[in-house]
C-alpha cells in the first residue's frame, strides 16, 4: 500500500510540467536555426532558450523523476511507510524555490551560460544558487533513501534487499557523489566570482570539476529507466526477470564505471594531460559492460515471457510478445534508441575519433538519443505503470498511449539522425546562426529541416502524454491491485554481502574518482596562470 501518493504525484507532475515547457523551447530552437526561419535579430534569445531547455531537461526534470520514483520504490518494495516524509517535502520545496531562482535570471537574459556553465562565462549569481538549491533538495532524497534502506535492513537482518530498492539507492549514491564535482565548481570557482569576491577564475579547473559531474549524471538519469527495465517490464508483460544477480551486478558496475570517466568530455582541452584522457577513455569503454549485461538479461527475460505465452523457435517467440502492451513497446523502442545512441557514444569516447565530431551536432544527436530517447521513453512507461496506483483510476487510452510512444520514437529518430549527419559535416552545436546560403551548407539545411519536423513530432507526443495523464485524474475509479515488482526466475533467498549492500561499490567509486581525477585537479589548482578574467553574461562593462 502506497501511503505517500501525494508526494510522488507532486514530484512527477512538477517534472512533467517543466518537461512540457522545455520541449517547446527545444523545438523553437530548432525552428529558428533552420532555413525555415529568418535569422533571429537578437541571438541572445536563442542562448537563453538553450540555457533554460538544458537546465530543465538536464537537472530538474530527471532529478524530480528519480526522486518521485525513488519515494515510490521505497514504500512499494520495502513495504514500510516512508521515513522522513516531512524532509521529503522540504526537499521538494527547495527544488521549487531553486528552479524559480534559476529561471527568472535566465528569462531576463542574465544567464546565457548554456547550462554547462562554460567558465569563464559568468552569469547571475541567483542562477547558480538556484541550481545549488535543486541539488541540495535532491540530496535530501539521497539521505532519505539511505536511511529507509538502513532501517529496513536493521529490521530484516540477512534478508535480501529488494532489487528495486538496491538499484534505487545505487542511483541515489551515484548522484550524491557525482554532484560533488559541480558543487565544488560552483562553490569554489563560479559563485565567488559571480558575487564579486574573486576577480579571476581557473577555467581549466572549473571544467575538470564539471566533467566529474558531466558524464555520470547521464547514468543518474538512466537509473530509473534501468530500474523499469529490470523490475517493471518483465512483470508487466507477464514474464519473469532472468537473473536477479545479473541485475545487481549491472547496477553495481554502473556505480564503479560511470563515475570516473568524465575527462573524455575534455579531449580537446589542453589543460589536462593526454595520459588521463586515455585512462578515462578506457574506463568509458567499460560502461559498455553493464549496458550489455542489461541488454542480455532483459532480452532473456522478455524471451521467458514470450515462451510462457506460447512462443517457440529460435526467433518465433518474438511474435508472441505482447507488442500492444505499452511497457513492451516502450522497452523495445528504448533499446533501439539506446543502441543507436550507444554506437554514437563509442565515437565520442574514443580519444582519436572524438576530434572529428567534437562540439558538433553529432554530440547533440548522441545525447538526445540516449537521454531524450532511451531514457525519457522509459520515464513515460514508468508514469503509465504507476499512475493507476497513484490516482486509483484506470488509464483508458491504451491506443493513444501506444501512439504517443511511437510518435516519440519516430520523432526522436527524425530529430537526431540528421544531427549526426550534419555533425559529420562539421555543423557546430549551440550556435544561433547558420548561413545556409553558402554553397557547401545547402545540404545541411535539408537535414536541419528534417530535425525541425522530428522536433514537431516530439512536441505532439509530449502533449499527448500530458493529456493522457491529466485525463486519468478524471477517469473511472478502480481499486488497483497491490503494486508489485518483477519476480526473478530464481528469487534470491540469501545474497552475498557484496550484492546485498552498496558499501564495496561506493568505496570503489570513490577510490577510482581519486585516482582518475586527483592529479589533474591538484595540478590545475597549482597552476595560477590557468586563472583568467571572467566574462560576465548580460552584465555591463
Amino acid at each position, binding site marked *: 500500500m502506497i501511503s505517500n501518493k501525494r508526494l510522488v504525484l507532486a514530484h512527477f507532475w512538477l517534472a512533467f510540467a517543466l518537461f512540457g515547457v522545455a520541449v517547446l523551447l527545444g523545438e523553437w530552437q530548432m525552428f529558428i536555426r533552420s532555413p525555415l526561419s529568418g535569422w533571429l535579430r537578437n*541571438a541572445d534569445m536563442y542562448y537563453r532558450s538553450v540555457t533554460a531547455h538544458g537546465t530543465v531537461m538536464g537537472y530538474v526534470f530527471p532529478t524530480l523523476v528519480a526522486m518521485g520514483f525513488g519515494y515510490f520504490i521505497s514504500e512499494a518494495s520495502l513495504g514500510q511507510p516512508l521515513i522522513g516524509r516531512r524532509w521529503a517535502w522540504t526537499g521538494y520545496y527547495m527544488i521549487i524555490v531553486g528552479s524559480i531562482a534559476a529561471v527568472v535570471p535566465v528569462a531576463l537574459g542574465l544567464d546565457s551560460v548554456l547550462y554547462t556553465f562554460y567558465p569563464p562565462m559568468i552569469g547571475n549569481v541567483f542562477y547558480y544558487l538556484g541550481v545549488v538549491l535543486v541539488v541540495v533538495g535532491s540530496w535530501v532524497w539521497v539521505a532519505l533513501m539511505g536511511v529507509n534502506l538502513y532501517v529496513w535492513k536493521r529490521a530484516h537482518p540477512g534478508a535480501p534487499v529488494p532489487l528495486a530498492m538496491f538499484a534505487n539507492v545505487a542511483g541515489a549514491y551515484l548522484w550524491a557523489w557525482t554532484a560533488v564535482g559541480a558543487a565544488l565548481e560552483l562553490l569554489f570557482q563560479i559563485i565567488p566570482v559571480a558575487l564579486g569576491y574573486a576577480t579571476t577564475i581557473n577555467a581549466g579547473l572549473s571544467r575538470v570539476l564539471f566533467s566529474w559531474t558531466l558524464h555520470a549524471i547521464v547514468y543518474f538519469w538512466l537509473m530509473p529507466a534501468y530500474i523499469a527495465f529490470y523490475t517493471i517490464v518483465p512483470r508487466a508483460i507477464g514474464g519473469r526477470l532472468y537473473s536477479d544477480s545479473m541485475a545487481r551486478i549491472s547496477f553495481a558496475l554502473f556505480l564503479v564505471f560511470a563515475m570516473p570517466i568524465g575527462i573524455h568530455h575534455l579531449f580537446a582541452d589542453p589543460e589536462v594531460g*593526454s595520459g588521463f584522457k586515455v585512462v578515462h577513455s578506457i574506463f568509458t569503454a567499460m560502461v559498455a559492460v553493464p549496458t550489455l549485461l542489461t541488454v542480455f538479461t532483459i532480452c532473456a527475460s522478455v524471451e521467458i515471457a514470450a515462451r510462457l505465452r506460447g512462443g517457440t523457435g529460435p526467433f518465433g517467440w518474438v511474435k508472441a510478445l505482447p507488442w500492444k502492451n505499452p511497457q513492451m513497446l516502450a522497452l523495445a523502442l528504448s533499446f533501439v534508441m539506446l543502441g543507436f545512441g550507444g554506437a554514437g557514444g563509442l565515437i565520442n569516447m574514443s580519444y582519436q575519433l572524438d576530434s572529428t565530431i567534437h562540439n558538433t551536432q553529432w554530440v547533440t544527436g548522441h545525447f538526445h538519443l540516449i537521454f531524450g530517447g532511451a531514457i525519457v521513453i522509459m520515464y513515460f512507461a514508468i508514469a503509465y505503470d504507476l499512475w493507476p496506483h497513484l490516482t486509483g483510476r484506470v488509464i483508458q487510452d491504451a491506443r493513444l498511449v501506444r501512439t504517443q510512444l511511437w510518435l516519440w520514437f519516430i520523432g526522436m529518430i527524425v530529430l537526431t539522425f540528421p544531427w549526426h549527419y550534419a555533425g559529420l559535416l562539421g555543423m557546430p552545436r549551440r*550556435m544561433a546562426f547558420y548561413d545556409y546560403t553558402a554553397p557547401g551548407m545547402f545540404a545541411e539545411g535539408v537535414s536541419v529541416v528534417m530535425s525541425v519536423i522530428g522536433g514537431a513530432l516530439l512536441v505532439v507526443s509530449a502533449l499527448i502524454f500530458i493529456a493522457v495523464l491529466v485525463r486519468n485524474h478524471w477517469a473511472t475509479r478502480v481499486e488497483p491491485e497491490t503494486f508489485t515488482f518483477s519476480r526473478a526466475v530464481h528469487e534470491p533467498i540469501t545474497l552475498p554481502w557484496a550484492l546485498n549492500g552498496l558499501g564495496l561499490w561506493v568505496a*570503489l567509486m570513490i577510490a577510482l574518482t581519486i585516482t582518475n581525477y586527483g592529479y589533474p585537479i591538484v595540478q590545475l589548482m597549482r597552476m595560477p596562470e590557468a586563472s583568467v578574467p571572467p566574462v560576465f553574461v548580460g552584465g555591463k*562593462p
Partner: protein
Amino acid sequence: MSGPLLRNRWFVGSVGGTFLLLVFSLFVGFVWLPSAQEDALFKGLWNSICSAAGAPRSWLSPTSAPVTPPTKVSEVVLTPTTLDEPASGGGVGRGATLALRCTMCHGLRGVSSSQTPNLAGQYASSIYKELRDFQSGARPSAVMTPLVIKLSDQDLRDLSAYYASLPRRQTPGAQDLQAAPDIVATGAPMRNIPPCGSCHGRLDSKLGVPWLDPQPRDYLKTQLEAFAHGTRRNDTSAQMRNIARNMTPEEIDASVNYYSGTR
C-alpha cells in the same frame, strides 16, 4: 560478510579487477601510447609519463624565443576590476580639470561637434584602453599621442572616470534592433563576421569595447576602414581587423549609418 576481506572473493575480484584495469589504463596512457608515437618530444620513460600527465619537463625546454611583433601592439589587459583601484586623490573632479585640454576636439561636455568621437557617457574601460594605446604607440595618432604621452596612469584613469560620468546622448533610432541592418543584428556567420551588436551594444556589451551610437559618421567609417586595411592595429587578437576585412563596402556603410544615426 564474514572472514577477512582478502579472502573474500567478491572483494578480491572487484577491487583486484578494477586495480588491474587501472594499471593497464595507466600503462597504455602514460607509457605505451606516448612511446609508440614517433614524436620528437618523446625522450625517455620519465619524460613520457610527465608529458602524458600534462606536467611540462625538459622535453619542452629547447623552444625558440618568443617572436617580437614587428609593430607595436596593445599591452592593455582589462578585467572587470581594472578601474576599481582607489582614486588616490584623483577621480571625476580631477579628470574634469585634465579634460580641459580635450575640449577643443571632444566638446565642452564630451559631445563633439566635429568628427571626433563623443566621449560623454562612454565606458571608462574603453576610454582608458584607447588612451593607454595612444600613449604606448599601439594606436598611433599625430594628434592624440603628444597630448597623452606625459600623462600618468592615474591621469588616464581620472579622465576615463570623468567622461564616463557625463550624461550620454541617446539616439532613439538606434535602440530599435528590428530596424538595424543585418550586419548589426546578425552579422554574417559564413564570413566570420559576428553581429556588431554582440559587442558594441544592443545585443550585448563586452569589456573594453565602446558603444557606438551615436558617433560621428566619418569617424566610424574611417576607423572601420583603417581596421580593414590594417592601418589601425590596437584591437585585441586582431578581432576588428578580421571582421572589417571581411565586410563589404555596403555593409560598412550600413553599419556606420546605423550607429551614426544618419539612416
